[in-house]
């Protein structure tokens, strides 16, 4: 006789992942399409349907529901529509997952409206806070001598602050808390058996099941990474600034020489590429 399931099997995790990925992915395609309204400096737009991953995080294993949703956004909302933003997406992936996981962990009894509301607003709010901090950090890193520019710091804080508030008020209430309140109690006890799972109760759901040592190590590594990037900028690390001794020792002539060689290389490469390209198209026809 096999034991009654208390933990999630590998395939159940995969089911949660796929469910969350496809649904949040689909909703993301819609939010990409819904136009935004500009009211003076304030932009009103539906950021995302965070209620979907939040509802799933509250009902199932938060970790897999959250990374499923974040993956869904990358695949449906970005890759398939040809809008993948590269590295920036990875940062959103991490922050969004963290927010959703926390939102899901806060709910022990999905039937309690209060817990669902608190979980939803704190989960989404955490995501917003984190991404606002990262956005500000980006400007701090990107602008040379950030502090030296008068008024810049204040304006950045205001712009980001306003964006944070509109997102929290519009998306946070209309598209996060209210829908989560509608969905979670309705789905509770109905959707779990479809995946062969038992509904979450205060007794069978322990935060320690989700926050495993592996999870902690992973988050520690990721925070270190984020911290490292921030540190780099503080260290006055500048790629273009290794030149003085070099120029002093060899003189400007050497640099001109380097440029000439490089230009010749570029020309030869271009010629080769054109030739190759023509051959290829010839082969095709």
């Amino acid at each position, binding site marked *: 006789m096999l034991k009654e399931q208390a933990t999630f099997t590998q395939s159940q995790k995969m089911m949660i992942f796929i469910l969350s990925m496809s649904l949040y992915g689909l909703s993301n395609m819609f939010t990409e399409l819904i136009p935004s309204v500009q009211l003076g400096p304030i932009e009103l737009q539906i950021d995302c349907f965070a209620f979907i991953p939040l509802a799933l995080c509250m009902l199932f294993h938060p970790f897999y529901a959250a990374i499923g949703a974040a993956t869904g956004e990358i*695949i449906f909302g970005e890759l398939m529509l040809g809008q993948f933003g590269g590295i920036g997406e990875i940062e959103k992936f991490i922050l969004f997952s963290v927010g959703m996981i926390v939102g899901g962990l806060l709910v022990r009894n999905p039937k309690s409206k209060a817990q669902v509301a608190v979980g939803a607003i704190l989960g989404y709010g955490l995501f917003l806070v984190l991404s606002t901090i990262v956005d500000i950090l980006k400007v701090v890193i990107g602008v040379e001598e950030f502090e030296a520019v008068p*008024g810049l710091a204040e304006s950045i804080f205001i712009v980001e602050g306003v964006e944070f508030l509109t997102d929290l008020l519009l998306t946070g209430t209309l598209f996060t808390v209210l829908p989560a309140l509608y969905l979670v109690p309705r789905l509770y006890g109905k959707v779990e058996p479809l995946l062969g799972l038992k509904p979450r109760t205060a007794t069978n759901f322990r935060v320690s099941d989700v926050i495993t040592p592996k999870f902690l190590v992973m988050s520690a590594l990721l925070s270190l990474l984020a911290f490292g990037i921030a540190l780099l900028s503080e260290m006055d690390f500048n790629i273009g600034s290794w030149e003085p001794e070099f120029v002093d020792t060899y003189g400007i002539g050497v640099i001109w020489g380097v440029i000439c060689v490089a230009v010749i290389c570029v020309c030869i490469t271009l010629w080769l590429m054109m030739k190759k390209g023509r051959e290829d198209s010839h082969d095709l026809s």
Partner: protein
Amino acid sequence: MFTLEWVKKLEDRLSLEYIKQELLRTAFSTEKSFFTQLDPRILLAWYGYFAIVPWFIYEHVTLVGYLLFMVILTVIARVSPLILTVLAVGLAGEILLLGFIALLFGGDLSIVAPMFWLSIKLAVISLASVTVFSSINPEKFSDALLRLGAPAQFSFSVAYAYRILPTLLEEFQQIILSYRLRGLAPSKNGVLYFRKIYYYITMLIKSFYPLILNSAKRSRTTVEALEIKGFSYAAKDKRVLKMKTNYLQTSQMDWLFLLLTVCYVVIVHSLQLIL
């Protein structure tokens, strides 16, 4: 009036058939450009450089040089003008807004210059990603990631997304239709079309209740099928991974492209020393 236009447009767009066709067209279109023939792994490495390094460059000559390179490449990659316009407007708007607020807070226009150079930086990075990812085939991209050590689940998810998107859209369309065939739309539009917008948005949100339940049923069969089709078997086997991604092969063109980039970067950085 502006809002009226907007709602009209929204109503047109709410013709789900239109949205569905548009999405499918975008997702399944395969446009050919110079970059589609390159090995996605090479492109990823290339992108890795241009996504990170510009952050730490503050010399104006180098930044302009990088930007010039990216502009030429976007032209070659035939990036849709719409994406470029959105990008440009976004960056310009940000600068203007910051300048405006800085003035309000007693600062002066000196804020514009550093923000301008930040925007150039961002433009280089965004153009690099647009060039690469608008011409890369997502499935090839995911296979490249698989080859580079990403989990098999991600690569599967990308392919699965292509499989399931039409089904999901179809189902969503039917559910919305069910709401509309049995519901009652508000007869009046309300202030700023508020009632209509409210009607549609609640419908959109409510439709996720049936969608979640239906998808849950579906994902169960899907995962079972994955199991009986030996997916977990393959995930453990390095040889299968190689077989799956065997078609990824670097050609002469890839190396030429890298060489070209290296030479160009050398020129730009050297020029910066002189000028």
